């Protein structure tokens, strides 16, 4: 038996979480269940869906474009995460130093994050235009190129990586700056007195102390990278020749260009599984390596 006081506490507790639980339920849990059901259907969003069992999954296994999309997603993620997290730690260290106009540099680094993806995409489309773009013009001055960038199937995915790292670096820098401010000056000083050089101080004092931020950024960036979509939608639209077709883009085109909603849901389920595995792996590794202080 629960006492009356405990019960009322119980009720008020539920009331407090109700709004959040309701929203997450409607926009999170419910669609997950619905998508799982959908993945076993032949559904064109128009006519009555039919039950097809695991057929969508069988088709997926033999779909060359789907396989490409998985490869592209993984290559993208393996490049994007280290470049953006590593790059931002370096930048944050520089910006954390006492230099003139540091407020200006910090703002400059963060502006791309606050810029709309559509605007970013349009700008990059022109910058990286092979014939008339500024990028090839400048590279030509130092006798490089010309490159096809978004129009060359061998370069398009890397161009997307470069554009998105530029776009998201600022966010990671802000997180790292906050973490770096939390590193006690006394510890750094103590290390120095003990004869540690710059690199040793960073390696043995600063880096372990910001490791919670590193874990967060790696997990967060990975989930984001696995679901990359907008930047591709506004630039290459999966092309040329599927070179930038990642999983979410392929899902989108199956669902909303060809109206194979069931098939698209099956892609979503596979993506969900991949994301889950990546995240669990990172958290497991993280728990062994991350220093959360005393």
């Amino acid at each position, binding site marked *: 038996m629960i006492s009356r006081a405990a019960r009322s506490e119980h009720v008020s507790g539920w009331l407090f979480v109700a709004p959040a639980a309701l929203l997450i339920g409607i926009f999170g849990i419910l669609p997950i269940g619905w998508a799982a059901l959908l993945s076993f259907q032949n559904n064109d*969003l128009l006519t009555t869906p039919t039950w097809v069992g695991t057929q969508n999954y069988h088709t997926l296994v033999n779909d060359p474009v789907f396989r490409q999309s998985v490869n592209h997603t993984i290559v993208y993620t393996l490049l994007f995460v280290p470049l953006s997290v590593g790059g931002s730690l370096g930048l944050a260290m520089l910006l954390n130093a006492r230099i003139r106009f540091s407020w200006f540099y910090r703002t400059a680094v963060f502006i791309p994050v606050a810029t709309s993806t559509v605007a970013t995409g349009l700008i990059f489309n022109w910058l990286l235009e092979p014939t008339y773009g500024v990028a090839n013009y400048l590279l030509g001055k130092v006798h490089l190129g010309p490159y096809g960038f978004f129009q060359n199937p061998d370069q398009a995915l890397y161009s997307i990586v470069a554009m998105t790292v530029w776009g998201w670096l600022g966010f990671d820098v802000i997180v790292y700056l906050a973490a770096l401010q939390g590193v006690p000056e006394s510890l750094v000083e103590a290390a120095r007195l003990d004869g540690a050089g710059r690199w040793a101080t960073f390696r043995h004092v600063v880096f372990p102390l910001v490791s919670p931020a590193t874990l967060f950024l790696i997990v967060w960036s990975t989930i984001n990278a696995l679901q990359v*979509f907008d930047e591709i939608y506004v630039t*290459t*639209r999966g*092309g040329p020749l599927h070179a930038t077709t990642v999983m979410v883009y392929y899902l989108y085109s199956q669902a909303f*260009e060809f109206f194979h909603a069931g098939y698209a849901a099956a892609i979503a389920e596979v993506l969900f599984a991949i994301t889950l595995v990546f995240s669990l792996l990172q958290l497991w590794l993280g728990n062994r390596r991350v220093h959360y202080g005393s």
Partner: protein
Amino acid sequence: MRRLFLIAATALLVASAGCGGSSSSNGVVNVTVWHGYEDIEGKAMTSAAARFNATHPKIHVTVQNYGNADYALQKVLTAIRGGSYPDIAYLYGSWAANIARSPTAVDLTSRIKEPGVNWNDFWPAERQAVQVGGKVIGMPALVDNLALVYNKKLFDQAGIPYPTANWTWDDFRAAAQKLTDTSAKQFGWAYVADGSEDTVWRFDALLWQAGGDILNSDNTKAEFNSPAGVQAATLLQQMATVDHSVYLDNGNGNYANLFNSGKIAMLFTGPWDLSSFPDVDYGVQVLPGLTNHQTISGPDQWVLFNNGSQRTQAAWTFLKWFTSPQQALIWSTQTGDLPIRASETRLPGYQAYVKKYPGVSVFVQNEANALKARPVIANYNEVSQAMGQAIEAVLLGKGQPQQELDQAAQQADQTLATGQ
């Protein structure tokens, strides 16, 4: 990277925007029309609704812009899925078969026989495009076709005579080469090479000129990998990868700006682009040909969606009025779009229209060269994508015409056989 969630949210927003026109209050029936017109055409749309509302006190038409018409089908279908959708929507002709499967789309078969519609006055390509399996699923909204639009000044500078109606592929290719100047970053021609329908339909015209076809007569097997198809793809290959006389547009529409700034000498394009070329003295000619000078016509349609008999009737009244010869000519005169009815060319105001838009009369005459239509089948999108990838590969020098088209045909056959 903000995930697909954003799209879903946008779709919801679009859907909720559509429920503005509810049922009758004080005896007035509200009708909502979705369109993707911008600028001049957008204003013409608003003014048409205002003229209609002024003369029809029992009906109130509201026009709403749904954004880029390329993505209208998914928006409308999402809205239908959400249960609140417009009474009328502007949709591309290539979607007719998809729309026909929706139980919400109103079958107009009996309505087009009403007096005053005069169905046979619409161009054949338009009538063909809206008929699916014995049903009429829309009213003609727009018709256009591809012709050769060229920059006169660049021809004069290169000392080449202007294109004639008898130009062959060889004439065209030779001229494009002469009009290309790599150092000045000037190209003879431009081609949209993103593998989309934009890539495919220009190829369709070449395929038909060479005597080929997209599918067989009962739409069960691909035929675009015939010798005619290979010939068409080879022309593209030679011009793009040997002559380098083609600017490859990656689907962002840069070609229009570049033509307007004198960097591109010739385009295969339609009347909708003419207003983007204010800085160029351009000429219009029928497409260069091989065995004939066929072009491709892209008729679009107004589709009616059932929101109850009262609203459907009101929406039909509006469409009938809007597509009448008088209103259609007002529209053409305001926007430069081609006449959707043959009888418009006999109305007294027609000469003023032709005078206002130089070159437009070539497009009107060119409508007679639009002999074939793309197949009206539900999985046309898949067939088109397979073709688009093949043509794109050829243009980018990543594949050979025969091999790429064969592979695409194999995919298309599979799609046609399984519906997947």
